[in-house]
């Protein structure tokens, strides 16, 4: 009986020892020089191996980052915090990821649009949409049955009494689930730092829109004419904003006769350059309408006739008090 124990222990121990020795030797013999930074990057990654970055796991992502195949902000789980740490390891400047948030391109709730039919059936936008495009007078409008609310995994969307989804900016992560869920395709992902949104998706001619909705885009193109940077274009009777070009001046929302364009910032009354200006020319370069003139190292001046009060010069100015901005009430 005793021999079984002895043989078991000896044979298993022997197998284990031989394999361990073999592996140990092999590890030395087949040692491959790897970039030490890969391990360092791997350490700062979340280590969940979730694959959200598009690579097989955290270690493959770390490798890709070192190789330059992946962006340092490629880890969506770690976010900017991890990107900063990776940037430190690589010694490069980190570019913060542009965060996007969901925006509803319709402001025609129950109050603003007319109801043209009754619907009794499955209470989802998808079902309603399949029957003659909904119950509202505008066939592009939000259907109001809350498919987006249902789809949102972060509870960021809530249907208001007016029958429109209210998107909580704090909770929205820009995952895009609501964009996919909306059968009307009126939810988009827009950069968080953009303050102007054209909240209408109707391609009907202005005459029709003004009859069926109080806040719809009537295609007057005043915003297009007003925009100092040509960020708004008319597409088939609808004003569409190009977020890449938009400078957050808010002029379009001021001009819009129907209140379709929303502006979440503060409107600027007047911009002046004071004597504090050191003449670095940053503001002149930033100005979208070339309203600022001045020679290097001399105090610059703003041509108030050209100025569109966008405030970009104020944003880029590095000298405190060199540019003064007065806001509208």
């Amino acid at each position, binding site marked *: 009986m005793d021999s079984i124990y002895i043989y078991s222990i000896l044979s298993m121990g022997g*197998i*284990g020892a031989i394999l361990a020795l073999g*592996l140990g030797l092999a*590890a030395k013999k*087949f040692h*491959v020089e790897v970039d030490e930074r890969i391990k360092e990057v791997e350490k700062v990654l979340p280590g969940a191996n979730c694959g959200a970055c598009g690579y097989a796991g955290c270690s493959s992502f770390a490798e890709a980052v070192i190789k330059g195949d992946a962006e340092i902000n490629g880890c969506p789980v770690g976010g900017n915090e991890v990107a900063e740490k990776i940037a430190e390891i690589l010694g490069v400047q980190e570019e913060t990821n542009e965060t996007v948030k969901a925006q509803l391109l319709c402001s025609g709730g129950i109050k603003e649009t007319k109801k043209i039919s009754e619907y009794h059936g499955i209470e989802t936008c998808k079902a309603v949409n399949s029957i003659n495009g909904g119950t509202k007078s505008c066939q592009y409008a939000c259907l109001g049955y809350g498919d987006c609310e249902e789809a949102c995994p972060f509870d960021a969307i809530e249907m208001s009494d007016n029958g429109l989804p209210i998107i909580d900016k704090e909770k929205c992560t820009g995952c895009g689930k609501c964009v996919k869920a909306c059968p009307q395709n009126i939810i988009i992902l827009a950069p968080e730092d953009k303050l102007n949104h054209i909240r209408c998706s109707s391609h009907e001619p202005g005459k029709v829109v003004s009859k069926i909705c109080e806040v719809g885009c009537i295609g007057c193109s005043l915003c297009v004419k007003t925009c100092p940077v040509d960020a708004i274009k008319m597409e088939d009777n609808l004003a569409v904003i190009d977020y890449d070009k938009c400078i957050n001046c808010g002029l379009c929302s001021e001009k819009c006769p129907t209140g379709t364009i929303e502006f979440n910032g503060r409107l600027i009354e007047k911009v002046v350059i004071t004597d504090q200006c050191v003449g670095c020319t940053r503001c002149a370069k930033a100005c979208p309408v070339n309203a600022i003139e001045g020679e290097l190292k001399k105090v610059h001046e703003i041509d108030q006739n050209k100025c569109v009060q966008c405030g970009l010069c104020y944003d880029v100015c590095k000298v405190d008090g060199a540019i003064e901005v007065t806001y509208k009430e």
Partner: protein
Amino acid sequence: MEELRVVILVFISTVLINNFILVKFLGICPFLGVSKQVETAFSMGMATTFVMTLTAAATWLINTYILEYFNLPFLRYVSFIIVIASLVQFVEMFIKKSSPVLYKALGIYLPLITTNCAILGLALLIPLNGYNFITSVVFGLGAGIGFTLAIVLMAGLRETLEFGDVPESLKGVPITLILAGIMAMAFMGFSGLISI
């Protein structure tokens, strides 16, 4: 000649009749997990074949010269797992050094094979079937090729299925499992092919 006949029969039998995935239902995890693309499925199949062949040889040696010699059949599970794990580790190191391209192609799948029940199943089936060394190696090779065949076929079907009109509730894993079941039934048709 008699031996050669047995070897060939064992090979055909493990590839088709006793296919590890579709008849024995071993290694279902990679079968469902890595069968989204034909290319990766093939890489996984090749890696598994490689490890299976080596495992068959190594476990036959250990079983015959250590476990049976000392009459310790109860140690099979433990020792085989150790051997498989070390073998995969060794293979990984070897490939990493000798062929970085192949190492990249196999990627995460290589370490995953360690925990694949098809490999342990293969190792445990060898003493059960009483094969000799050459037959064992051929058995391992056949099991690997059968694995590759099943997983590549599955990947091909799933690639086509991507464009198919699958009912919402069956999308993803459910339809894959139904496919696996139908494929397993199809493979049952091979059961009368040869008899040993």
